[in-house]
């Protein structure tokens, strides 16, 4: 299974990104890590180019919302039906209510949304989703 990952927008928090890379490798994924400071368009291009199964976006600095609201438009330009769109980290500026933030990002077009959720829990959920899709 191929995963494209990275940190979206003008966000340079790299620590989680490094750990995500390691964790995905350990779980047997083939990882294409675009690193920090990656724009949505770059992610989409990489997914197409690598024919990835999963796009796993991180955002830590709180600015995810501004960078992800156009996902629907970008998704409509190509057939991404088989790709799992996933986002996690710290998805808002200030302390956020997960009850409000999760639906918002699902509405932008993410299949799996994890606001301040443990990485392993998130990756377990990803594997379960992939399993179910088989």
């Amino acid at each position, binding site marked *: 299974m191929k995963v494209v990952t990275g940190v979206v*927008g003008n966000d*340079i928090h790299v*620590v989680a990104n490094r750990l995500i890379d390691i964790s995905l490798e350990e779980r047997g994924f083939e990882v294409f890590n675009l690193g920090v400071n990656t724009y949505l368009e770059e992610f989409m291009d990489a997914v197409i180019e690598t024919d990835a199964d999963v796009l796993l976006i991180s955002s830590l600095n709180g600015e995810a919302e501004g960078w992800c609201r156009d996902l629907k438009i970008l998704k409509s330009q190509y057939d991404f039906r088989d790709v799992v769109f996933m986002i996690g980290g710290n998805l808002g*500026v200030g302390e956020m209510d997960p009850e409000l933030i999760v639906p918002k990002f699902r509405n932008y077009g993410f299949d799996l949304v994890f606001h301040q959720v443990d990485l392993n829990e998130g990756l377990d959920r990803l594997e379960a989703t992939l399993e179910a899709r088989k």
Partner: protein
Amino acid sequence: MSLLQREREIIVSNEYIDRFDFEEVEEFIKGASKNLFISHTFKTTDHMLVQPRGGFPTYNKVFQLYKEFKEAHVDVLPLTIDSNTRLNDYASAKKMLALSEENDVDMLNGYPLVNHGYRTTRKMITHYDTPVSLRHGTPDARLLIETALASGIFEIEGGPITYLLPYSKNFPMDKAFLYWKYVERVCAKYSELNEPINRESFGPLSATLQPPAIVIVIQLLEMLLSLEEGVKSFSVSFSQTGSMLQDIVSSNVIKKLSRKYADRFGHEDATINLVYHQWMGAFPYNKEYSDSLINTSTVIAAMVGADKIITKTRNEAFGIPTKEANAMAVANVKYTLGMLKGLPTVSDEEEEENLTNEVDEILEAVFNDGADTLWRKVFNSIKKGYVDIPFSPHIINANEVITIRDPQSNIRILKKGKLPISDRSFAFERSKIKLAEGERVVDKIIQDIGIML
């Protein structure tokens, strides 16, 4: 018109800003209240200055934040800049600012100073008549710093290394050096008009397992690059390592070496201050524990004898703190510093000797580089991996140095990569490390990142 002035004219002619009136700005700085200059506060105060972090997208929210801070008896106000402005993306900043203003939701993680402009911002700064420190993380900060100084912000954080390696993925480093040279010069120039503008380096770097030797090397290099351009007041800094002893040792060494190298390069007249950052790594998801962590940082800051402490809040793990939480943190830190008495003077000869050696060894290698100017020597040294920080997102960083904690939580160098430290120094580092049978380095690193959780 000087070359510098010509560059300045170009820099400030940006579609996102109003006409920039250099003459008026000069007049303003000449006549500005001494209370706005932290360099003056350092001279006239004997207690540790307390400075929080903080910035919101809109003017009103920052104004209210400052009000809360003042009620908590803050010593230095912060102005933290949003991350679009940090990456010179003024268009995104503008868009997000507009959204923030319309919807009363913060769409930026800081204050887009360039978009607000100096005329507006200065009103707030002079209103509070308290030193303000600019916190950004911008490799090309030329326009930002022009705007800040014109606003009455007379302390500028950052530098070509510390605001690049942790803060950028691929901004060209040579440019960063040149752009910061511009900043130093502008600061030096304005320093002649009134009290000196204070420059501060950002010692925490990527805030994750940074070995003190590399932190200090970078602090001293940025200090020298700044003094070289005529800056007269400079703060070196570092953040809590996770070991009280390592903090004390770092402090003793950086105090000694910053003076030594400043003097050696002919800057006997420059004032050097020490800034301590409360824990900069990952915070616990428990606000009470965060309070405990913050208080412990405060006690350590007092023990290391810093001139200024930069505070965190109980909201750190959750997001940008509310103004109330932020002001409460300031009040608590002030309380602790006020009641904490009878601080012993601590030192550790062996550790200090080793750290001093490492710093001297790396600096010697940097100075021995064949380039003609100091900034080129530093640039080459980073390219060669002589200076290499763990967990940098930047492509130029060698990423070969690996650090883990010893049983006392001191950060030690496990793999030295291209660091030009002696075998003796490296043996000392390695001698402290205890990896359990079969323990994987990656697991140890994950654990060592999360020691405060």
